[in-house]
């Protein structure tokens, strides 16, 4: 007769003991693995006469960078190189995110259009650019498009304001005069006023049921007030227009070809993905929701604003954020065409010059990791806030 009690089971079959043992094994394995790597690295670095330290960051870099948002020259330090690269990465990523969102939204809506031709064109756009590697698109825009443009003297001229040539794209640049701060201040005040007005309108509607044309009034305040101040202060904004001097353009904002082609490729590639997300988000709101809202007597605009969009956005925003992250990470492909981003100047040129492979790769990965984790945390917070609360 079997008459076992629970604690008669031998210790090696006890679940808790097994769990502990397994975890000890994992710790031992991970620690051993890293110790092995660290030991080998130490030996190899000594053989090459390199010591791991951050002291190289203070040394003079001695190379030039073709685009920098902060003052930089070849006598600057490696720390400065790091900063220049990081800013260039963030610069191209930020602009790319704005453009990709706009283009993606337009294409995504066009894909759902009742216009057959428009929907097909949007579909062709999405399927073409989503299925070709981004790097190939970057190469295409850089080597096949930008380098095939005419020289500076024969630039393509768009209205005398925009110029395209094989040295880049030249745009007019706004030059704010001292009094321009008043316009900015007016804008801030107008925004504050609108937020306050919105609260008031909500409260009044809750109490009395009388709606307030918030959108138009808000738009009027936010645009109107700065505009009045702008004219009152005597239009304190000049424009620097690019013009040909000698063999190159002076003035305006010059976007180097590396930047232009990277931005174009990142924008188009990400926009194709965003368009698909927008489409599926809008389709995810069931038609019953629209019908229910209509039968409540809401006008079409309010149906979109109060019923469809909030539900669609809950589906759209998380994957779009991960597309933004992808775009930021993909901007590291810049190194293939020589746009001076973080990977190109820091993990590329600086690494080759100093040989500080471990430190530099760790810092570079750390930066991207920090960006990703920050955005993930924000995303989790947002998901928690908008999650569907069921009974």
């Amino acid at each position, binding site marked *: 007769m079997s008459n076992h009690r629970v604690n008669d089971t031998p210790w090696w079959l006890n679940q808790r003991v097994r769990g502990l043992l397994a975890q000890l094994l994992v710790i031992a394995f991970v620690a051993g693995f890293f110790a092995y790597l660290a030991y080998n690295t130490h030996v190899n670095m000594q053989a090459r006469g390199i010591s791991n330290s951050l002291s190289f960051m203070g040394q003079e870099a001695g190379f030039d960078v073709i685009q920098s948002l902060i003052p930089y020259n070849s006598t600057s330090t490696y720390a400065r190189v790091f900063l220049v690269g990081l800013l260039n990465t963030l610069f191209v990523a930020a602009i790319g995110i704005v453009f990709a969102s706009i283009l993606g939204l337009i294409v995504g809506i066009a894909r759902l259009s009742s*216009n057959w031709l428009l929907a097909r064109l949007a579909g062709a756009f999405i399927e073409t650019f989503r299925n070709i590697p981004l790097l190939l698109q970057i190469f295409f825009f850089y080597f096949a498009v930008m380098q095939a443009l005419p020289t500076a003297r024969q630039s393509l001229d768009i209205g005398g304001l925009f110029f395209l040539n094989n040295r880049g794209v030249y745009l007019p640049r706004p030059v704010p005069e001292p009094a321009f701060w008043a316009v900015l201040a007016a804008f801030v005040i107008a925004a504050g006023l609108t937020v306050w007005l919105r609260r008031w309108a909500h409260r009044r509607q809750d109490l009395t049921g009388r709606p307030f044309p918030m959108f138009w009034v808000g738009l009027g305040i936010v645009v109107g007030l700065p505009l009045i101040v702008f004219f009152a202060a005597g239009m304190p904004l000049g424009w620097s227009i690019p013009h040909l001097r000698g063999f190159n353009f002076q003035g305006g904002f010059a976007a180097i070809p590396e930047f232009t082609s990277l931005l174009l490729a990142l924008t188009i590639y990400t926009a194709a993905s965003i368009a698909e997300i927008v489409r599926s988000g809008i389709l995810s709101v069931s038609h019953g929701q629209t019908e229910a809202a209509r039968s409540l007597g809401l006008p079409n605009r309010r149906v979109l604003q109060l019923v469809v969009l909030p539900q669609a956005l809950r589906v759209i925003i998380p994957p779009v954020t991960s597309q933004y992250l992808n775009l930021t990470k993909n901007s590291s492909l810049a190194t293939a065409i020589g746009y001076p981003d973080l990977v190109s100047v820091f993990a590329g040129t600086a690494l080759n010059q100093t040989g500080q492979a471990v430190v530099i*790769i760790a810092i570079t990965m750390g930066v*991207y990791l920090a960006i990703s*984790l920050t955005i993930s945390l924000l995303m989790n917070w947002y998901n928690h806030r908008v999650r569907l609360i069921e009974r």
Partner: protein
Amino acid sequence: MSYVLKERHPDLPPPRSEVGVIGWLHRNLFSTWYNTLFTLAALYLLYRAIPPFIDWAFIQAHFTGTGRASCQGGGACWVFISERLPQFFYGFYPDAEQWRVKLGFGIFALLLAYLHLPRVPAKLWVGALTLFVYPVFAFGLFSGGPLGLAHVPTTQWGGLMLTLILAFTGIVAALPLGVLLALGRRSKLPVLRSVCVVFIEVWRGVPLITVLFMSSVLLPLFMPAHVDIDKLLRALIAIALFQSAYIAEVVRGGLQAIPKGQFEAADALGLSYAKSMSLIILPQALKIVIPGIVVTFIELFKDTSLVVIIGLMDLLGITQAALNDPKWLGFAVEGYLFAGLVYWIFCFGLSRYGLFLERRFHTGHRR
């Protein structure tokens, strides 16, 4: 006196604007004034883009010839592509040995085709053979040596062949690792779970380029001095590690979708952890995530082009090399169009295949 009809009035034909070609045009292209505007703008755009492209790519193009001289005048120069077709496919693999690549990929295609037939004998064994034995065999076949074949070092592998090797080896190595990581992330053991979470989040948080840089710069440092790792192998390790993190997240989604009752039922049957996972949970979870894995595989396929940056000659690398050939300067558009078309065919085909699998594995109740 009555004006009421005595019999039913015969049905009138539907208005001309609602049926037939005109009706279709009215509904789909000219339903509102702004739709008309969009249609006209789109037609104009197509008119400006399509005829010149056809003219350039086909009518004025040069298809036959032997050298640069046969590409005079406007139009595309497809001679540039046809002259180098073997390079685009095999890289610098010796001409006399290219039958080995064809044989290798032919066997692979046969294995895959067999696995796709419904209800054939020994499917599990063939699957295991494809996953574990075939890669070793293919490596031996392609690099030569042990089988008495001429040795072809991996530095000579290239073109589409290398792209396919990177993608398939990447997914074969990443799948099991990814499944293990996903299981680890859902484990109740805190240490195991945190190790998996850190592993997954680190790889997912950094760009593939930095991982490739790491594998090409740091891996030699991490190994004892006498160990020399092949450049291709380094890229493969980087791609497999990187991809396994993405696979893990996809699989985790599938695991989360399995109702708790399934876990409890497996426990109630007295199945061990390994058995309940391999017999109950994973078959259901993997079935759900197959579309997600195909999407990941498409991303991996596109990402293999990044190995250009560490100097491997995959399809994009060969294209770059061909464009920099001083004898053939100035045909960048043709080169990129061709490479893009090849990538597109594979990626688009894979995405359609993913849709097909989704339908085929949809064995539950259809809504």
